[in-house]
């Protein structure tokens, strides 16, 4: 086991992976409870366009993806509000457009397909110091902002109308959640890739909800599932010579299965 942790690239991957997983676990719980889990999936597709734009313009792809994802999340909200479209329709429109932009730019440039693949499928063991710094800077901010607004977000997810009547500024919290989701999705891209980033948001939260008997417990369980998935997933990737994105997600899926069996046993 010591051998893994002796490698610098493994340490960087573990640090960035854990931070991103924790932010995803906390945020994911609120998204799952308000049945908004697929916004992560949609925004991940949008970020593909952002990464391609970054590579095309030769600027930090994660930075470009972040800007595009934040703008897209706000646009999705506006489209829902102004055009009266359902959330999944608005997400579908923007995610397709984001992917299309990415494909078009990749074709125009014709040279950065290998880089794009690393964002599509994730490549955390190859994460560089700039990307680690971005994760270390942003993931704790996401967690802090969520915990600082914990009670209001809980009210919003549970009973939006009563929350509004109690003076909670629900529209502002919607924007806050959209922006935090964009940030988390962009950070998660490098860990598990665009195609699997939803797993970080949904599986730990979904697992926690199977066994938790309080909101606080759900937060703690979600956090534990996410952290365990990253640690065990990275070790499995290193030991079995498999892509880390796949092993991290599969580990969380196995934990979900264990939690599901635990719930069935409890109910029976």
């Amino acid at each position, binding site marked *: 086991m010591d051998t893994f942790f002796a490698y610098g690239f493994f340490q960087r991957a573990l640090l960035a992976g854990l931070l991103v997983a924790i932010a995803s676990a906390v945020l994911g719980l609120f998204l799952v409870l308000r049945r908004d889990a697929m916004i992560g999936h949609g925004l991940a597709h949008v970020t593909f366009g952002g990464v391609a734009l970054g590579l095309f313009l030769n600027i930090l792809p994660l930075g470009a993806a972040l800007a595009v994802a934040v703008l897209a999340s706000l646009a999705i909200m506006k489209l829902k509000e102004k055009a009266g479209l359902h959330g999944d329709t608005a997400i579908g429109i923007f995610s397709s457009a984001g992917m299309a932009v990415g494909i078009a730019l990749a074709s125009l440039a014709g040279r950065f397909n290998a880089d794009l693949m690393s964002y599509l499928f994730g490549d955390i063991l190859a994460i560089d110091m700039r990307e680690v710094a971005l994760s270390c800077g942003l993931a704790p901010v996401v967690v802090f902002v969520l915990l600082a607004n914990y*009670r209001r977000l809980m009210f919003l997810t549970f009973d939006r109308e009563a929350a509004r009547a109690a003076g909670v500024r629900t529209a502002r919290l919607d924007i806050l959640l959209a922006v935090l989701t964009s940030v988390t999705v962009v950070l998660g891209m490098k860990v598990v890739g665009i195609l699997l980033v939803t797993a970080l948001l949904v599986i730990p939260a979904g697992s926690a909800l199977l066994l938790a008997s309080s909101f606080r417990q759900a937060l703690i369980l979600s956090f534990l599932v996410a952290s365990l998935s990253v640690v065990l997933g990275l070790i499995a990737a290193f030991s079995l010579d498999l892509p880390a994105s796949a092993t991290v997600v599969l580990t969380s899926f196995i934990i979900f299965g264990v939690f599901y069996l635990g719930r069935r046993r409890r109910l029976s």
Partner: protein
Amino acid sequence: MNEERELIRVEGVSFQYHSVPVLLEVTFSIAQGDFLAILGPNGSGKTTLIKLILGLLRPTRGRLLLMGKPIEEFKAWSKIGYVPQKSTHVDLLYPGTAKEVVAMALPPSRRRPGQGKKEEEMAIHSALEQVGMLDYRDWPIGRLSGGQQQRVFIARAIVNKPEMLFLDEPTAGVDAATQALFYEMLHQLNAERRVTIVLVTHDIGIVNKHVTKVACLNQKLVFHGSHQDFCRSEAFKTMLASGHLVAHSH
């Protein structure tokens, strides 16, 4: 006789939904200590009126004053508790406990960790005790019965010790015994803590037993006055004849 302080003033309020009129030129006021029932047939605008007063909808015409202030300038929302219609649809997997659901309504703390925690705990304890749900404080809300959930929602609405409580058909789908306890509790809040209560209901039994004032809507305000006057009014006879009032034993 002392004139009670006016808490809510509704002045010439109209509301349209996609060009369909829902409320027309409604004017009335609610005074401190009132236990007011809002009655009317389905689609008469009862829920819309409550939502307008709570700022959840904007009137097409007219204005609303809350505690003397135009609604746009009103900030003291913690003085108002609200239990929405059909709030009993709780997802079984929702993990929040009764205690956590009540705590949602507490204002966000701007204190250092640990400070003021005792006061918050006491407020939650007291609210749950008042609705008889203290023994269930650590139960996930999804595992409580409809009536128990409704009591927790009332606890959430009163945890900030509000001056006014709005309830929109709060006992729909709740058994008769629980309803009786529930309205007894509302009666106590009104009589002992002088909480002003505004209740949307179809149940004439509740109106006769607990309510002091009645506002009767059918897009327009067709009656507003004391319970005694309502029982002698044409509006009462019309509603009774058309089957818009039901009588449950409480």
